[in-house]
């Protein structure tokens, strides 16, 4: 990771000083071990701020929507999931491929600070390092080594595109692809009866504080005017009311049908841990079953399945049961 970070800084300084780009989007280290935040660099002298570690999880592609950068050339760093998100923004005609200079950073998984905390390893932790498949937790006076996948985000364990699908320049070597089954939770829910499922989702949705973090972080949610912000007609009320939460989550997920790249950012940023990936993956699974396998974000030239049709499509709404 260190070498990639060095390359990152060197390349950022190079493209800035040569005038190839006006801005570099990357990550910088925060104060604490788990903080790696997006940083915007316009001067090559600041390239030393850039970092690449196990916590560089925010997707930088969504920042390209900022109006003030529309006229500028921007260089940015993509992990596999970020690249899928970028392709989705491209498919939605929200970003211009010509104006982005993309550095690919193959990623074999990032560490979930909450998992570290749950394992009780966070007290006095200074930093986390990775060597091969082994993590080293570094404290003031000691070190602890464990197997890395235990602490990866769930979304990283099921990641199917760790190597960016779109880039101009690759930093580092492609990593092996070894995803776990991603529909396990969906299948488990499908096996329950409808009332049990309702109870489950009611429990999840009633926690929602409608902060809209899941919408704002999503690379497929890029409408200039979002229906949840409209006041006329006001689709989503302001009341703290379960039916409004249900309306929000059903609509949000359904808008993503056929466009969700399954990057898992929505579930990661949720402050109350609503398993939003299960909603998205249910839709992905149904599309795969009904209209053939489709991976959003892999090829931006393809037409998303819900804005097209085939005269021979099944009329699945005639099924006696939906699932």
């Amino acid at each position: 990771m260190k070498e990639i970070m060095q390359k990152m800084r060197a390349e950022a300084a190079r493209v800035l000083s040569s005038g190839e780009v006006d801005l570099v989007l990357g990550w910088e280290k925060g104060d604490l071990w788990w903080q790696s935040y997006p940083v915007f660099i316009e001067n090559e002298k600041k390239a030393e701020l850039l970092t690449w570690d196990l916590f560089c999880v925010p997707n930088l592609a969504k920042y390209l929507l900022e109006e003030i950068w529309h006229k500028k050339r921007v260089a940015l760093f993509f992990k596999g999931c970020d690249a899928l998100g970028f392709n989705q923004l491209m498919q939605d005609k929200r970003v211009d491929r010509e104006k982005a200079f993309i550095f690919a950073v193959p990623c074999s998984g990032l560490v979930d600070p909450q998992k570290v905390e749950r394992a009780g390893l966070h007290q006095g932790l200074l930093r986390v390092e990775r060597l091969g498949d082994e993590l080293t937790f570094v404290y003031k006076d000691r070190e602890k080594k464990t197997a890395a996948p235990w602490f990866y985000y769930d979304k990283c364990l099921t990641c199917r595109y760790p190597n960016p699908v779109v880039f101009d320049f690759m930093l580092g070597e492609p990593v092996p692809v070894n995803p776990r089954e991603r529909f396990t939770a969906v299948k488990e829910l499908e096996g329950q009866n409808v009332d049990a499922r309702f109870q489950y989702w009611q429990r999840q949705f009633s926690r929602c504080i409608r902060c809209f973090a899941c919408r704002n972080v999503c690379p497929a949610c890029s409408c200039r005017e979002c229906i949840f912000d409209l006041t006329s007609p006001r689709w989503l009320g302001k009341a703290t009311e379960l039916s409004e939460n249900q309306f929000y989550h059903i609509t949000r997920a359904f808008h993503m049908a056929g466009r969700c790249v399954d990057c898992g950012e929505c579930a990661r940023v949720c402050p109350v841990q609503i398993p939003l990936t299960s909603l998205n993956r249910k839709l992905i699974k149904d599309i795969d079953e009904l209209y053939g396998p489709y991976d959003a974000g892999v090829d931006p030239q393809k037409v998303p399945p819900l804005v097209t049709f085939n005269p021979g499509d099944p009329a699945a709404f005639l099924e006696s049961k939906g699932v």
Partner: protein
Amino acid sequence: MSVAAKTQDFEPLIVAFCCNWCSYAGADLAGTGRMSYPANIRVIRVPCSSRVSPNFILRAFQRGADGVVVAGCHPGDCHYVSGNYHARRRFSMLRRFLEFVGIEAERLEVHWISASEGSRFAQVMQDITDKIRVLGPNRKLRDSR
């Protein structure tokens, strides 16, 4: 009060989104042909079955509907050539999705009813009213206020 007595009292409210070119005309034919169908149906005319957004359906459930019917032209007959094909994908997905979040799939029905199928319109509306009457009121998506 027993459960049976409760269901006897319950009169379902069903919203039917009917496409202007086929199903709405089908409803018209049912009317001019003096065929009776339950008074529980509230028909809303839409230009095309693909005009119906999932929001309309959710909002109907939120504001008191016990069932929703979306009716459009038969595949191949769409006035706008491909609207009902898009609707077919959309509502196939939506119905499975609602079932997934715990709403009985029976509450949302999609039918193709042409302008000449007045008796079919009456039959479809009769059937869904009977089904929802057995299923009982929708409490799951309703606004509690």
